[in-house]
C-alpha cells in the first residue's frame, strides 16, 4: 500500500470514527441512550467502563480520531510516528473495551464495536505510514 493510499485510509477511517465517537459523546452528555439494534448500547454506555477518571470514553475517542484525522495531512516523520503511537494506544485500549463488552458486561454496543474496528483500521494505516516515512 502506497503512502498516499495509507493516508487516504487513515483519513477515511478517522473521519468515520470521529463521526461515531462524536455521536456517542453527544448522547452521553445529553443523558440519553444511543439508537441501537439491541439493548447492549445502554448497558455499555451506563457501565462503569464508559468513563475513565470521569472522562467519557466516547470523548477520548472523539479526541483521538480528531487528532488522527489531522495527522493524515502531515508528512513529517515525527508527526507520522507520533500519530502511530497514539493509534497504538487507541487500538490496545479498544481491544480491552471489546473484551469488557464480551466477557465482563456480556453486552455489545454496536457503535462501540464499529468504533473499535475503525480504530484497528486507522492504526494499521498509521503504522503503514511509519514504514513509508522511515524508509
Amino acid at each position, binding site marked *: 500500500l502506497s503512502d498516499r493510499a495509507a493516508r487516504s485510509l487513515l483519513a477515511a477511517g478517522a473521519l468515520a470514527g470521529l463521526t461515531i465517537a462524536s455521536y456517542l459523546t453527544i448522547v452521553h452528555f445529553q*443523558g440519553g*441512550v444511543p439508537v441501537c439494534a439491541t*439493548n447492549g448500547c*445502554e*448497558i455499555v454506555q*451506563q*457501565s*462503569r*467502563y464508559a*468513563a*475513565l*477518571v*470521569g472522562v467519557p470514553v466516547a470523548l477520548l475517542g472523539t479526541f483521538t480520531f480528531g487528532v488522527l484525522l489531522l495527522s493524515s495531512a502531515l508528512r513529517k*516523520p*515525527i508527526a507520522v*510516528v*507520533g500519530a*502511530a*503511537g*497514539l493509534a*497504538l*494506544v487507541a487500538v*490496545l*485500549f479498544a481491544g*480491552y473495551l471489546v473484551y*469488557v463488552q464480551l466477557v*465482563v*458486561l*456480556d*453486552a455489545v454496543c454496536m457503535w462501540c464495536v464499529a468504533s473499535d474496528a475503525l480504530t484497528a483500521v486507522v492504526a494499521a494505516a498509521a503504522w503503514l505510514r*511509519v514504514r*513509508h516515512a*522511515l*524508509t
Partner: protein
Amino acid sequence: VRGYLDPVKRRSGTVLVAVVVAVAVLVAGAFVAVSAVQGDSSTKARPTSPTSAQKSLFAGIQQHGIVLGSPNAPVTLVEFADLQCPYCGEFARNALPQIVQDYVRSGRVKVAFQGLAFLGPQSQTALRAVLAAGGQNRAWDLLDGLYARQGAENSGWVTQKLLREVGGAAPGLNVTQMLRQSDSTSVTRQLRDAERSASQAGVDGTPTFFVGRSGGPLQRVALTTLTAAALRPALDAALQG
C-alpha cells in the same frame, strides 16, 4: 529517497519507533488498569456532586414516605436494599436515574424503597436516617446522597457529619428533625415492617426487585445486570398488562 536512507538515520528511526511503541504500550496499560480498577470498585463514591445529582434527579417528582412517584402510577416497582450493599449502590448510581427519567417522571411507575439492615449497624444507622427523612417526604434525596458517598461495609462511613451533609443537600429537609426522628418508634416500626415484608416475599439478598400493577400482586424480577435496560422488560410488560 525512499529505501536509501543512510544507516545512521535508519537506526535513529528504529530507535524512535521502539520508544514510541514502548510509551504507547505503557499508556494503554495505564488506561486499562485505571478502567479495570474503576470497574471492580463498587464501593467508591461517584465523582459527580451529590448535590447537583439530587436536584436534577428528583426535582418535580412527588415523594410520599418511602415511595417515589405519583401515587396514581399504574405500576409499582419495589426495591429491597441495604444502604451498605455495593450492588444496591451500583443500581442506584447507574440504573435508577434512567428509570426515574423514563418511567417515574412521566407518572407511569412509582418506586417503593424497602430498606433492610442485615449488613451491620451502619446499615441501620443509614436506614433510620432515610426513613426519618421519609417522614418529611425526602427519603429518596437522602438515599441518593448516601449511595453517592457509599463507603466500604461497616468502615465507619455513616457518620453524623455525613448524614448532616447529605441531608443538608436535600431540598426542604429539616436535618435536625430528621436526626431526632431517626430513633423514633415510627421509624423502628417501619424497619420491622420491611423485615417482615422481605421475609414473606422470600427476599434472600439485595437488591431484590418486584414489579406489578399497583394494588395487585407483584412479581419478582431477576436481573442479569444492574442496569435500567435489564429492568425495562418487566416494567414495560406491567405497563401493558
